[in-house]
């Protein structure tokens, strides 16, 4: 009976893992097939002659390198800006005497509840007015702002855990607030900043709606939009071999991040969501 229970347990865990990774793995398999085999009926579950031809094709026949470069620039810049600005704000909200601070944090969290979908139309007008359409800044600034509430909240919960004695000692030693933040608090908070940075990077790497609307020129597009536009030419000539190669290349960094930093990501997400 116990043995049967254990077998069922293993089976259930295996099913959950297969369900979670299946759609990604199916893209990996598809991307390794020769073009003709991709559209074979019935589908083969393993490539007969594994090849990297599709990967070569997306770089030689499409501006996939440009998409990746755009995505890297936008995601890294957003992560850096969000970390700096968010750390400063979280420090003020959690450690400095701040009249009205509590109220500000509450309104920030309230604003963060709403999906960006409802901001996008007026935001489009704004970005247009600032002449930032098809400019990486047109994504970096909104992404930073959209990620700030979450980052500030997560960083605050970590800052609150740092003992106050250290800052008091720093104050006795005559350090200014800036010096205290830079020399005492920031090194201690570095793991927390890294946690939020990973999450912000993933969010910006994945974002689609703003990227679709603000970056209309092919040369300015980020990877998700670039890939979604790979189809679109006609219904019947969708280049699935190339799409699957592009999907794998784009998702691989995220999968690697998740496997490497699983604990941190879980920590950051639960700190952000449960306590919020």
């Amino acid at each position, binding site marked *: 009976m116990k043995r049967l229970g254990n077998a069922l347990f293993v089976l259930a865990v295996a099913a959950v893992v297969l*369900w*979670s990774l299946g759609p990604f793995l199916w893209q990996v398999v598809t991307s390794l097939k020769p073009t003709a085999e991709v559209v074979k009926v019935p589908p083969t579950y393993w490539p007969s002659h594994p090849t990297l031809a599709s990967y070569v094709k997306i770089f030689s026949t499409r501006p996939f390198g440009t998409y990746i470069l755009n995505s890297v620039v936008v995601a890294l810049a957003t992560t850096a800006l969000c970390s700096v600005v968010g750390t400063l704000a979280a420090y003020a909200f959690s450690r*400095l*005497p701040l009249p009205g601070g509590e109220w500000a944090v509450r309104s920030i969290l309230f604003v963060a509840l709403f999906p960006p979908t409802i901001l996008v*139309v007026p935001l*489009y*007008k704004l970005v247009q007015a600032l002449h930032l359409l098809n400019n990486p800044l047109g994504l970096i600034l*909104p992404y930073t702002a959209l990620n700030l*509430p979450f980052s500030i909240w997560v960083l605050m919960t970590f800052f609150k855990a740092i003992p106050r004695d250290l800052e008091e000692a720093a104050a006795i030693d005559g350090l200014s607030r800036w010096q205290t933040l830079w020399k005492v608090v920031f090194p201690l908070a570095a793991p927390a900043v890294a946690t939020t940075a990973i999450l912000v990077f993933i969010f910006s790497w994945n974002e689609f709606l703003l990227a679709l609307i603000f970056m209309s020129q092919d040369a300015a597009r980020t990877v998700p939009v670039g890939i979604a536009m790979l189809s679109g030419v006609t219904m019947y000539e969708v280049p699935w071999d190339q799409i699957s190669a592009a999907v794998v290349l784009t998702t691989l960094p995220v999968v690697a991040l998740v496997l490497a930093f699983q604990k941190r990501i*879980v920590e950051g997400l639960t700190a952000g969501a449960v306590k919020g």
Partner: protein
Amino acid sequence: MSRDRAHAGFGPREAAVNWSFAVPALLLMALVNLLPVVAAFRYASGFHRLSADGRMFASLWNTVRFTAYAVSIETVLGLAIALLLTRPFKGRGLVRAAVLVPWALPTAIMAMAWQWIYNPEYGILGDLLFKFGLVSSPRVAWLASPGSAMAACVLADVWKTTPFMTLLFMSGLANIPDELYEAAGIDGAGPVRRFFLITLPLLKPTLALAMVFRAIQSFGVFDLVWVLTGGGPGGSTRMIALYVYDNVFRYLELGYACTLTLVMAACLLVMSAGILYFTRQKEQA
């Protein structure tokens, strides 16, 4: 000591210096999160058209259905997976990481992956179901009929967002003291009784919070459906966010799109009132 000093010398100047740390963040958020709301009211036009806009009501109804299906399935599935993964076993860390993967992957890109799974000619879903004898032909046009297109969107969304639920539930489950289960075990309560007597009541605040939070997110769904079905066939999966997008870029009615945005915001306000209600309950408990 420093706190005394801080309080002794705490004046408007001091407060201004402290606030200055938060100014860059507040400015950015005001620009991106608040200004558009003000602008939406300014640009909004065509309020009188709302009551006769059948497409809007249809897309609101689609969104409500999508949200109801997706969130309820995600909650049950998320809870089941969370319960499964609380039991310690070898390699649990790796399994938890694998379970988290769908949440971290780009929604729009994975919508392409799902489109490939649903492909009427070469799709793996039709082939698998055919091999198990569940459909009469491997060629099923999942995205071509209204009912199955909606189901396909829900399934892809469930795949994508269940990890978030699982994650929240796992941390909720970790907060339930073991002694309660031990006491129930001594009293002779089986696993099913323990689930209904202890797990479910103690997890209720987490469940409620996660569901309302997900419902708000799901109400704004765009990427997944836009890539997967484009709102078709025949508008049967057109969500409210897709309708707003259509108004901007297809019908070039920016003013009316802003009005629709406000309608959406109003719906979401009602839902977040729900959140506040639930969190207050949590504090009382």
